[in-house]
């Protein structure tokens, strides 16, 4: 299967601002056929897409709560249908916040414990490689990727954390450059250093760091590219 045959949909809300980066990387770096889905899009069936990306940004200006308004936008109803039918949905940064607010993933995002916007490179440890987003990775692989967010402090009640652990749906944790999951390597105060989680079925994943900003060597890291390569591999092999 030619990469060009893989169709990716990128949702665009008012205030999305990583949409163009994801679009460029999917089309130019990975040679896929990626296109935008405007939030007022009337095409109810997203079944024509091989996967959907909800990109980062400040949808609706982060008013009310990060992701809260976008989660109630018409297009999210179609994304939910798509996801419930097993479609692959990746939420990055604000996209992760939207997935949480839409109830497609469990938990909430609090303001970073520094109370500041944090933009820097972090390391992630891959805990589960049995998902469409990580199938090209080896267990415990370390990925270097940048974060850029104000509200990335993942929080969930005990029951949810237990369930995440039990079902092995914590996909990535923040760690240091040697892979140790330490307090100092946690950039935002997330519970248990959680950086990315999936649903039980594994077809929906949200993560705070930006794989699209770390898919080319010249930008300092190609590690984020493994996430897109995993999706491509999964689609080709299914």
């Amino acid at each position, binding site marked *: 299967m030619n990469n060009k045959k893989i169709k990716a949909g990128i949702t665009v809300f*008012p*205030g999305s*601002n*990583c949409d163009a*980066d994801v679009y*460029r*990387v999917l089309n130019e770096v990975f040679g896929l056929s990626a296109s935008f889905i405007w939030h007022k899009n009337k095409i109810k069936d997203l079944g024509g897409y091989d996967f959907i990306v909800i990109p980062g*940004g*400040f949808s*609706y*200006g*982060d*008013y009310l709560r990060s992701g809260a308004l976008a989660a109630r936008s018409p297009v999210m109803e179609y994304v939910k249908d798509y996801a419930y039918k097993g479609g692959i949905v990746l939420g990055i940064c604000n996209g992760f916040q939207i997935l949480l607010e839409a109830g497609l993933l469990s938990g909430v995002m609090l303001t970073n414990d520094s109370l*500041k*916007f*944090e*933009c*820097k490179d972090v390391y992630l440890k891959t805990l589960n490689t049995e998902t469409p987003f990580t199938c090209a990775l080896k267990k415990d692989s370390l990925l270097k990727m*940048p974060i*850029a967010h*104000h509200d990335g402090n993942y929080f969930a009640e005990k029951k949810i954390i237990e369930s995440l652990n039990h079902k092995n749906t914590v996909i990535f944790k923040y760690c240091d450059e040697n892979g140790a999951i330490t307090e100092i390597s946690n950039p935002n105060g997330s519970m248990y250093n959680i950086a990315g989680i999936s649903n039980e079925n594994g077809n929906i994943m949200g993560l705070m760091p*930006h794989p*699209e*900003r770390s898919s*080319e060597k*010249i*930008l300092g890291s190609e590690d984020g590219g493994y996430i897109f390569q995993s999706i491509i591999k999964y689609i080709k092999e299914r």
Partner: protein
Amino acid sequence: MDNVSAKKNDTKKTEKLFGLSAEEYSKISELLGHEPDAFELGIFSAMWSEHCSYKSSKVYLKTLPTEGSKVLIGPGENAGVVDFGDGDVLVFKMESHNHPSFIEPFQGSATGVGGIMRDIFTMGARPVANLNSLRFGSFSHPRTPYYLSEVVKGIGFYGNCMGVPTVGGEVVFDECYNDNILVNAFTIGIAKKDGIFLSSKCEEGNIVVYVGSSTGMDGMHGATMASEEFDLKKNKKRSTVQVGDPFTEKLLLEACLEAMEKKLIVSIQDMGAAGLTSSSFEMADSSGKGMIINLDAVPLRTSEITPAEMMLSESQERMLLVCGRDKFDELKAVFDKWGLNCVEVGEVIKEKEIRFFYKSKPYKTLGVNTVVKGPEYKRPVKKPKYLNSVKPLNIDNYKIPENINDAAFKIITHPNIASKKSVFTQYDYTIGTATIVPPGFSAAVLRVNGSGAGKKGFLLNVSGNSKYTYLDPFTGGALAVTECARNITACGGYPAAITDCLNFASPEDPEVMWQFVNALEGIKSAALKLNTPVISGNVSFYNETAKKDGDKTTVHKIYPTPVIGMLGFIDDVEKAVTPYFKSEGDEIYILGRLSGNLGGSLYMDLEYGNFMQKPSEIDLDYEIRLQNCLRSLINKGFLKSASDISEGGIFVSLAESAITCPNQTLGFAVNCDTSKSGVRIESFLFSEFEQAFIISVDKKLSGPQKTAVSEICAEYGIKLEKIGDVKKGIMKINDKIDLKSDKIKEGYFSVI
């Protein structure tokens, strides 16, 4: 405001409220043929304010070099435009938002960033990078942490939400800014050469359209406020500060660019300072036309607003544009899609006047020229008295400190030297997937996505040194330009063009005007020599505050602070060089020559509490040869690192080169016979802004390669001297400096 009687016997009061002088008031009355009413006075006071009219600086700004082979549009439009080749152009400008940021630092800095980005996308360019230059009061002043944290938060709030990376800047602390902080914001955008939009293309019969946010009471009289000094009651000026909404601006950006792409717009101008007044009058003026403006159609946030207030409001995220009547429906559809106002508010007319309608009736008519052609002053100029006591330094009059290690540690951990990483990480600098060299190093290096640009890229830097400008305004002005160029060249780039932000105290003080005129001469001479024309800029006067000191009132003035923003080009971003050392064993050289002059240095200030000495002058001819030589060495791939020698001197250059390497902590062992050139060790270590660079090269460079390096240096007539080697973990210079890299690193990264 309409209640304010503007009768002649009230001139004193009027002057205070409207910021006009008695002479200006009389001139307005004469031009109108009657005493101005509140509406007219509001419009004149805004357009004749220093901020909008440049009345004290215009005479001098005209003398700056503004042309060059790559300059497509120089000063006069919303921003300047430079040819980037392959059909692309770069559009950039820097602007101050000092007064609002002192009154309300979060909103002031946020709307400063919002305003400069509007200037860029008004031209049809998509903003691709922001930088800023910030000046705060003394680091130990109790209010400084508040200003620092709020200003940085405001800049991040706006830029991050817009999705425009903030890739660099400077943060400087000095007590001269205790009562007047400076916030200068720079934005660069990219556009297609044939996709540039101007404010000067209005044609008779076109309609005038208001887009963006509704008009409210915020920012009232902002332009006038920014043209006055502060007094003790600054809180009363709070309502003059604008409130920013970056979300709306993001929508406005997308809507404007979409409408431009569809060729629906004829002319456009941002409603920035003096809002609807400046946008309508200036567009009409630059197009040689007039306008009908129907005030009933202006979208409002409150019904409790007078016509004068509508004209003077500085509510953010608004644009005035002009389009063909046949395009309006299509234009409206674009703005509807983005959920923004798009309202016809008038028409372009042949007669050069603005006819205002209010409550469906003719309200006022004002001649465009009458309002726009404000006063122009050649204000009195007098050499400041304090300069008589600024003499060349004789270091022999000062005792050598017992422990130079302590002096070095004090310098590297001084707030003006120490790392600003905790500031930069609050800005999104990775969005756009174009940032090759992030903030915190010499210059930001960016690539260009989505065009046929290939590997070529551009570099950005902002620099200014107010202390040196205070000690020697000409040298300070020239240094700001030269320092930007050094930072760009140290990465391997070619300096191309500049924008300037000139921050000074009151122009009504002849000594301040002297500083201004001489600093501008310095900028001019360096810009001419380095072939970097000034394509846009901004002047901010009245950065001073009256303070009560017992019974006496004294005026605290900032040091003259010209700040330069420079654009450079690079053919291959993969060849860009960073300032930090790369591996143990590499050889360290000084390229250039040292003056050893400690006059005006941080060392003199910290060690002896006296920096009132003459800084070194810059030999611009030598500078060009030096920079060409360095660039040639970089382009041939001989250098592993290059760093200029700026504040703090050679010690700081070496130390930063050792500890800012991302993956390891390096050090150095340097041995340099300074007695040969007859300078004391401190002069070697801490003299600043030398015409020299610290470079490192691979020790495994072959014989022929080493010969090639020597030949290049000889060709440009530049001295190259090996001074030591890159080490791990230690910092040693002769037998005078012996420090641990880890300790220096910890200090350097933990101050701010």
